């Protein structure tokens, strides 16, 4: 028989924490055990579901963007998870393909699977507002690069190969139990291999229940234009924007 402890939530206090779960003896009631297992299963699936590149391409073409595909040096998901260094470097064929383009754009946009391909479902809603850079401000944008088995730092090599002034990486963040679809945006001025996290700006937790994609796009538009004006990203720009900093031990996707 389940002995229900009084549920603090019934007192009208809101926290998303798993409080007032009740118990049976010393243990969790069945329902709480299975609810937790379901949330973990969803997060696990988000980590392991492969990116449907064709579907993303279709969405971007519909928005009027041209696209490119690249892969990292991580051959599969296991290698990706165990070796972040491989996910941060382009495969040889991808590198050759990008280097031969010779486009030198103002901005390269990268859509990367990161730790949750599901998070890229939100990317078109961010990108449709960024089209204003081209239409209203005359920026030269590179084709949007769709990157598989990719870490944030892969954007540095992509941007360098394209000769881009800036790279914006939209990437699936580490899934939480209640947020398997959180998208992160990382902006880096003059991308090249070896850039540190302190040289980037970050807008995180982009999802309908977190920072809505439209609001994220507004922040990014400000950040992009300010980065171009000041010719820098990272700590200096953070100080002005009030955006949160990336600490030395913050694990990026």
């Amino acid at each position, binding site marked *: 028989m389940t*002995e*229900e*402890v*009084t549920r*603090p*939530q*019934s*007192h*009208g*206090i*809101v*926290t*998303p*924490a*798993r*409080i*007032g*779960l009740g*118990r049976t*003896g*010393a*243990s*969790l009631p069945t329902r*709480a055990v299975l609810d*937790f*297992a379901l*949330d*973990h299963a969803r*997060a*696990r699936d*988000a*980590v392991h579901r492969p990116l449907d590149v064709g579907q993303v391409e279709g969405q971007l073409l519909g928005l009027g963007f041209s696209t490119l595909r690249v892969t990292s040096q991580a051959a599969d998901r296991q290698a990706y*998870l*165990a*070796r*972040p*260094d491989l996910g941060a470097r382009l495969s040889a064929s991808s590198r050759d393909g990008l280097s031969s383009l010779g486009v030198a754009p103002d901005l390269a946009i990268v859509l990367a699977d990161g*730790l949750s391909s599901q998070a890229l479902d939100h990317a078109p809603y961010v990108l449709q507002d960024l089209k204003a850079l081209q239409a209203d401000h005359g920026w030269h944008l590179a084709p949007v690069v769709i990157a598989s088995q990719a870490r944030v730092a892969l954007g540095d090599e992509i941007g360098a190969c394209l000769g881009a002034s800036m790279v914006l990486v939209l990437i699936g963040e*580490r*899934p*939480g*139990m*209640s*947020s398997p679809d959180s998208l992160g945006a990382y902006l880096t001025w003059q991308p090249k291999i070896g850039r540190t996290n302190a040289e980037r700006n970050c807008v995180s937790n982009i999802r309908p229940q977190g920072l809505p994609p439209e609001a994220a796009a507004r922040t990014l538009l400000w950040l992009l234009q300010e980065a171009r004006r000041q010719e820098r990203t990272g700590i200096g720009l953070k100080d002005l924007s009030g955006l949160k900093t990336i600490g*030395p*031990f913050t*694990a990026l996707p």
Partner: protein
Amino acid sequence: MRRRSTSDLKTLMARATPLRSGDQLAGVAANSAEESISARMALADQPLTRFLNEPLIPYESDEVTRLILDTHDRAAFAPISAMSVGAFRDWLLSDEVDGAVLKAVAPGVTPEMAAAVSKIMRNQDLILAASKIRVVSQFRSTVGLRGRLSSRLQPNHPTDDPSGILAAMIDGLLLGSGDAVIGVNPASDNLQVLGELVEMMSGIIDRFEIPTQSCVLTHITSSLALIEQGRPVDLVFQSIAGTEAANAAFGVNLDLLAEVRSAALDLGRNPNGGQVMYFETGQGTPLSSAAHHGVDQQTLEARAYGVARAFDPFLVNTVVGFIGPEYLFDGKQIIRAGLEDHFCGKLLGLPMGCDVCYTNHAEADQDDMDVLLTLLATAGVNFVMGVPGSDDIMLNYQSTSFHDALYARRLLDLRPAPEFEAWLARTGLVDGRGHPLVTGGNHPLLQVLS
């Protein structure tokens, strides 16, 4: 006849380490299973004195090495000074060696010696040897006594909402959690927010006369600022690591740790003496800041304990699976690391607890955590975490729950810290067997939520 290894000591240590992804990422792991066992055989033959004569990280360039060697107690070391690493393992597991012997030898054991012997120990050796050792620490509660298992109540909230944190605190107290510490990880580093959290937790502890202590797990310089503001800071928290460079990436050094500890001692909030520090560690942190000097991550973790013991901490917590699969890939590696960390910490004389935990991109789940929790409880771990429903909604990882601590206590007949146990009974939260009671909405603890 001892074989003198031709390779340098840090390479031998790394090759001998049971497989983990972080050492592979660093490029220091053995290249085959046979190479790893051969390295363990060679390591077993090394004299313990070699670790005093050949620092893995140079004395001149690393203050952690200097701390370890300058504070090494030759007299305490004497009983084991002629031993090899292999003989040391046999000695640790022998019937003559009990908790009193191990306590006496602890100041003579360096972190590198502890790491070395752990590498040639099986999981059962790590459990049995650690179970001999009890490291008891005291603030308002007494943690680490034989037959006791304490927990840190971890009531985190993604936006530091005080009412949300309070609700999780009350939920945990109702389930017998929080006798090691009520410790919140704040999302903010704003001093006003941090100060209000310190005051809120202190207010609950005072009002209900709970024999426990609070901690806001913020950077040590923020704790110092809170102390200077006159906030009621019980425990000072800091993440630490096993090299000077990794500590620098955390924004700390030995002098700063000493300065802030001194400020906390001046507050005089510990009625039982000078234990005012709460340290957290975890395998892989030095590599994540490129500050590992080619040394394997488990040896560096043991060196972090060398830092911790210089400051007489009340609690030390290895956050074993938090950093991710690039350092500890799966449940097997997390379980092994948790047992190593607990053993090495206890051998060095520290009040070790463990955040039994994992992230969603590691190959691990609650079943793995059940295994590690059960093993650590049998090994005599001082404390584990109590997170509502195991789901930390601020840090986005999974740890042990209030219920998990109840499970371990029930299974192994372990009890909370004695002062806290008496408080639970006095407050009507447990029955005569120490089991949680169904608590009505009119219980005073629940009244604070309305």
